[in-house]
């Protein structure tokens, strides 16, 4: 029996306490008024002007925010100009879209009657439009949210308001990213565990207890996560823009035509209902399988083996559907205008490899304590092969998603990557290095896959890389260019890491670490490659 070492226990508590303090500080220090935001933006600009010797991340960050700010100001000025011209023609206000349309119609048909009387003014605004076409094309997002701007002051106020919402979202997003990441790690480990049962694999039963330990986090993780979703549903935060009031009401100023078409699926009650069903299903499987697995050991009755086989098969069917819908709901819907058909697989690959990595790291920790004497290098080799293989699989999906959208260059799709490459350049490409290049190079060699320190190093980089992956999936939609890895982000990770360690290692103490009742345990003990 494993005993939760007091050092590890106090370490996990320390992480949790630090995490809670940091999360609290993050919420407390989020700006509450427009004035706070003004001050922050001023400071960022001053920062940008003065300090070039800063760390790369901060420099690029402030540059990005400054650029977008300047960009918006330019928009405002041009807009004022355009609207001035337009007022002369007794039009109340001019939208970007209108200017572009006008411009296009002139190009297409110069004798069009409706444009003739406006040709003088249009010729002028067409120049403006010309410049803007390129910008607007790459930033549909901007044009959607700045529909009718009249003057610079209003534009500035709106910008401040926007930044305020982003900064207020930041601690919530940090919490959300860490929460969903750690929960999905456990779910990924659960899927791996279920696959072992269905495949009746001979090499892995010796690791079943470790896997069951890691999956123990599914329950607390999903409870906290569900609470977060409920808080979002009740407007305690604004992570999900589609949850805003009046989003489907044509008279409301929040009205969004695209989201209105999706409300049959994206509405808060159905959203929470789905979440409850999925989380319940996963927890149910975890509970049933763990119970049968322990009983199998105690009674050596093979009917429990069959029950677990059936449970795993049914779970995997349920999982592959629920996982895909889950990824649309909890991750893709923060960008409600955008969609990707392979997103479910992409998210799955990300947390699946993280789950396998965590199983590996836990196994190595326990082995080094002398608690898993039967685990040999071949088991580690197999786990490392999975880490390597699923990392490549993740890259395949990441690239498939990126390449098709990059190539087709359809504004509504490519905006997703434009935002990330412009404002999240370092994390966006950094994660490809961490999740693909590094594991590829270091885990390619068969002998390296048997060395503990190599696996641990690769594992830590993979875990960090997939955290950044989730960060990149959530943050651009909720925080925009106001992101940085600050107190909120780090302490959210610390808190959930502490909780994870505590839950996992507590679960490991509950049963012997070797599942001796499994009919394949002998094969597993003698597994060699």
């Amino acid at each position, binding site marked *: 029996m494993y005993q939760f070492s007091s050092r590890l226990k106090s370490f996990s508590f320390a992480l949790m306490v630090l995490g809670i303090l940091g999360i609290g500080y993050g919420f407390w220090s989020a700006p509450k008024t427009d004035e706070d935001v003004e001050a922050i933006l001023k400071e960022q600009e001053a920062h940008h002007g003065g300090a070039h010797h800063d760390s790369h991340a901060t420099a690029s960050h402030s540059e990005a925010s400054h650029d977008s700010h300047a960009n918006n100001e330019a928009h405002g000025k041009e807009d004022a100009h355009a609207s001035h011209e337009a007022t002369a023609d007794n039009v109340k206000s001019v939208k970007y879209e209108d200017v572009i349309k006008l411009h296009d119609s002139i190009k297409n048909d110069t004798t069009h009657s409706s444009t003739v009387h406006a040709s003088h003014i249009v010729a002028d605004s067409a120049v403006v439009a010309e410049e803007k076409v390129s910008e607007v094309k790459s930033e549909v997002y901007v044009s959607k949210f700045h529909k009718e701007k009249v003057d610079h002051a209003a534009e500035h106020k709106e910008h401040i308001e926007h930044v305020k919402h982003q900064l207020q979202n930041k601690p919530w997003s940090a919490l959300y990213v860490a929460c969903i990441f750690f929960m999905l790690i456990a779910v990924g480990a659960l899927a791996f565990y279920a696959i072992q049962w269905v495949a009746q694999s001979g090499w892995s039963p010796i690791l079943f207890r470790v896997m069951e330990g890691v999956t123990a986090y599914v329950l607390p993780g999903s409870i906290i996560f569900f609470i977060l979703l409920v808080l979002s549903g009740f407007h305690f935060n604004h992570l999900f823009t589609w949850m805003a009031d009046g989003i489907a009401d044509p008279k409301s100023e929040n009205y969004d035509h695209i989201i209105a078409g999706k409300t049959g699926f994206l509405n808060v009650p159905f959203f929470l209902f789905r979440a409850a069903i999925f989380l319940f299903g996963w927890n149910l499987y975890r509970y049933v399988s763990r119970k049968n697995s322990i009983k199998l050991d105690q009674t050596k009755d093979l009917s429990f083996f069959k029950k677990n086989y059936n449970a795993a098969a049914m779970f995997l069917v349920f999982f592959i559907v629920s996982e895909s819908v889950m990824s649309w709901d909890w991750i893709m819907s923060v960008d409600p205008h955008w969609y990707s058909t392979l997103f479910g697989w992409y998210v799955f690959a990300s947390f699946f490899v993280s789950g396998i990595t965590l199983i590996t790291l836990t196994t190595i920790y326990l082995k080094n304590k002398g608690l898993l004497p039967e685990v040999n290098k071949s088991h580690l080799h197999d786990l490392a092969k999975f880490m390597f293989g699923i990392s490549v699989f993740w890259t395949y999906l990441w*690239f498939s998603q*990126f*390449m098709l959208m*990059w*190539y*087709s*260059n359809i504004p509504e799709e490519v905006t997703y990557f434009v935002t990330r490459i412009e404002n999240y350049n370092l994390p966006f490409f950094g994660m490809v290095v961490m999740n693909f290049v590094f594991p590829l190079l270091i885990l390619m060699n068969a002998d390296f896959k048997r060395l503990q320190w190599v696996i641990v190093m690769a594992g830590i980089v993979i875990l960090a890389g997939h955290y950044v992956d989730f960060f990149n999936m959530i943050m651009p939609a909720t925080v925009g260019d106001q992101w940085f890895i600050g107190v909120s982000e780090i302490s959210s990770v610390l808190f959930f890491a502490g909780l994870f360690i505590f839950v996992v290692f507590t679960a490991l103490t509950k049963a012997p670490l070797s599942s001796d009742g499994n009919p394949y345990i002998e094969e597993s003990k003698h597994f*060699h*490659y």
Partner: protein
Amino acid sequence: MSNKVVHAIYNDDDILLAAVHKTKAAHYHIEEVYTPFPVHGLDKAMGLPATRLAICAFLYGITGLFIYFNLLRYIMIQDWPQDIGGKPSFEFIQNMPAFVPVLFEGTVFFAAHLMVITFYMRSKLWPFKKAENPDVRTTDDHFLMEVGIHGNEEELVSFFKNTGAVEVKVIDKH
């Protein structure tokens, strides 16, 4: 000098593997083992050196990558640049994401095919080649270990009878 060998025949891969370990421990020289399917760990048990096929695969892959790089660069950039979806087509690097699948497939194609050909050549396999296995049952459900005799015939026969062999034969090889 007579070229006599012992053929020890087994009907289970685990028994075979155990026998190989014992034979190695007794310092008899295993000339060859014939199996109907690959037996895990047999190469290590026999003390065979690690395969160098992986190095070949790497070199072939690099070759394929290089060939496809040049092919793409010539077709898509140099000879006939096309406007595909408004993407810049005058520089390789700007079009790189679109070329990645092709480069990948080229790498795999070369590595896979050349590796198979290398393997056949190295194993001396070619069309209409006569089978080398001494007993036809090794293509069905039996495993055969061939051990050279150096004046210790009696000793070897009794040794292999004790390793779980279903049949032990002494063969005069020519």
